């Protein structure tokens, strides 16, 4: 499980960083989305793998239960990311409307 998690994290980070190296506002926003997902997986994997443990719900049989706190962390982070990504895309759309380009370099060169 840890190995798979590490692979997934590696893949997401690679794609995210690749996208973030671009100057295109939409790619940057998507890159951020991938990075934040990578980070969410890191937090889940780092805080213990639920080998055979159950979800901590009322009425579930005895036995080891998963620690719910990291899940709460990740859920909160997902909500925040949702807001942040919406804002990034809104900014990208707005910038495109104003300047007719998605490229950050064009604008910088025009000053």
């Amino acid at each position, binding site marked *: 499980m840890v190995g798979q998690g590490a692979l997934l994290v590696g893949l997401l980070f690679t794609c995210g960083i690749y996208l973030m190296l671009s100057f295109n506002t939409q790619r940057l926003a998507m890159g951020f989305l991938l990075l934040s997902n990578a*980070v969410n997986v890191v937090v889940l994997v780092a805080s213990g793998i639920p080998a055979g443990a159950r979800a901590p719900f009322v009425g579930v049989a005895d036995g080891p239960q998963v620690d719910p706190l990291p899940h709460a962390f990740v859920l909160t982070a997902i909500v925040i990311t949702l807001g942040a990504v919406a804002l990034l895309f809104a900014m990208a759309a707005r910038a495109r409307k104003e300047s007719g380009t998605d490229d950050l370099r064009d604008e910088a060169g025009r000053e």
Partner: protein
Amino acid sequence: MSNLVAAPVLLPLATAILLFPLRNRRRLERGVSLLSAVGLLLFSSWLMLLAARGEILVLPLGSWSPLVGIVWVVDRLSAVMLVVSGIISLATLVYARGGLRPERETRFFYPLHQLIMAGVCGSLVTGDFFNLFVFFEVMLIASFALMTLGARSRQLHRSFAYVLVSLVGSLLLFVGVGVVYGTAGTVNMAELSRRVASMPLPPTFWAAVALMLVAFSLKAALVPFFFWLPDSYPEAPLPSAALFAGLLTKVGVYTLFRVVPLISGPNPGPLLSVLVGLSALTMLLGVLGALGRGTVRGILSFHIVSQVGYMVFGLALFTVTGLAAGLFYTVHNILAKSALFLSGGLCERIGESGRLGQVRGLAKTHPWAAVGFFVPAMALAGIPPFSGFWAKLLVIIAGFREGAFVTTTVAIAVGFLTLCSMLKIWNAVFWGAPSGQLHPERGHDWRMVGPPLSLAALTVILGLGAAQFFGYTEAAASQLLARTPYVDAVLGSPGLATKGPR
């Protein structure tokens, strides 16, 4: 247990919610937000009165145990920061009326301002790393929205970098928090401090702590993480720029003050020497950058970076005098820097441009605006009798006492360079024969002259009452370094639930 702790967070939050439906009634909107800012200042002062007696107020949210739930804590450090935040919030709101271009005032300026304050106050009171991350995000997302309010495309592109850097910084913080939880089993600052002191923790834990420190340094604009600041802050609307300049980076500095003493562990030596080196670089690079800029707010923005160096230097000395000096410096700097941004913005409004040399001779035509710039500028440069003189002197004394000669020498030299660039603005904008004043009447609007003047008056008061205030920061510093009062107050707090909700 005290619900008073929740007031500085709840009040701005509730005001923001109330203000959204009011957005078409400008007058009511202004009134409500001013009222709420006054309330925030009152509540914070009340908290500071309690904290000054050495009390540490703890509020376990939802009566959960601090080990699994969130705690909000106010000690001397948080309390003084809350009061200063309240002052800045009030000053920028009064200024907003005249300082905002009308199209920017309409669109959610007031609710977003309140949301930023909720985020700032939340970051100041929280005793839990994950909650700190959440409040950082509240603060940042509201600040992004404020920065791009009614923005033109150049502003949008400039702020894009700021937004991405801040968001990625928050991701680093979140990875750090997650891995700290995975390795140490808690994200409560007090409990973490206890565990760091009492048990050996794996290297992964320290890597995670390092990630968190990087994230905090990024917020504080410490070298080498300062590059996002000088380009983005001058693009924000005027009153927001003053709020950002005064508060947002200082929240990063505050977290460093809070976190480093708590979790630096039994052997903080290497971390501290890194911090000393970085603070010297920060002072130097910031001031050099400022010398090369040609706009009022551009210069002032680089000075934010430079000043952060002094604060972190005080922290890195890790003695009571050092921390106290750093905290004194932080408070002085929030006041002086916001005043400078407000009065610098006033010049921009008069001349419709921030370029040096565009508008001239303001000292003759607008003497009060000139005083509102001169006093904080001299305070920032460290001229007696203003607050900055004492702040710098204390940092330098603490530095020499600890034998950090190189950095202390840098600190003194940077003081002179700061004076140079303040004089550069002064000569270009205020001195000489009046010219280029496109809207001279704007400079007589008391709503724009009053706030920087009041903040300037505060730096004078802080300078005259330096001994008393240093007594307070010294007490705060010893509270921070002793660790146990904070840890005991949080973990031994009464009012814990015997059972969680089901």
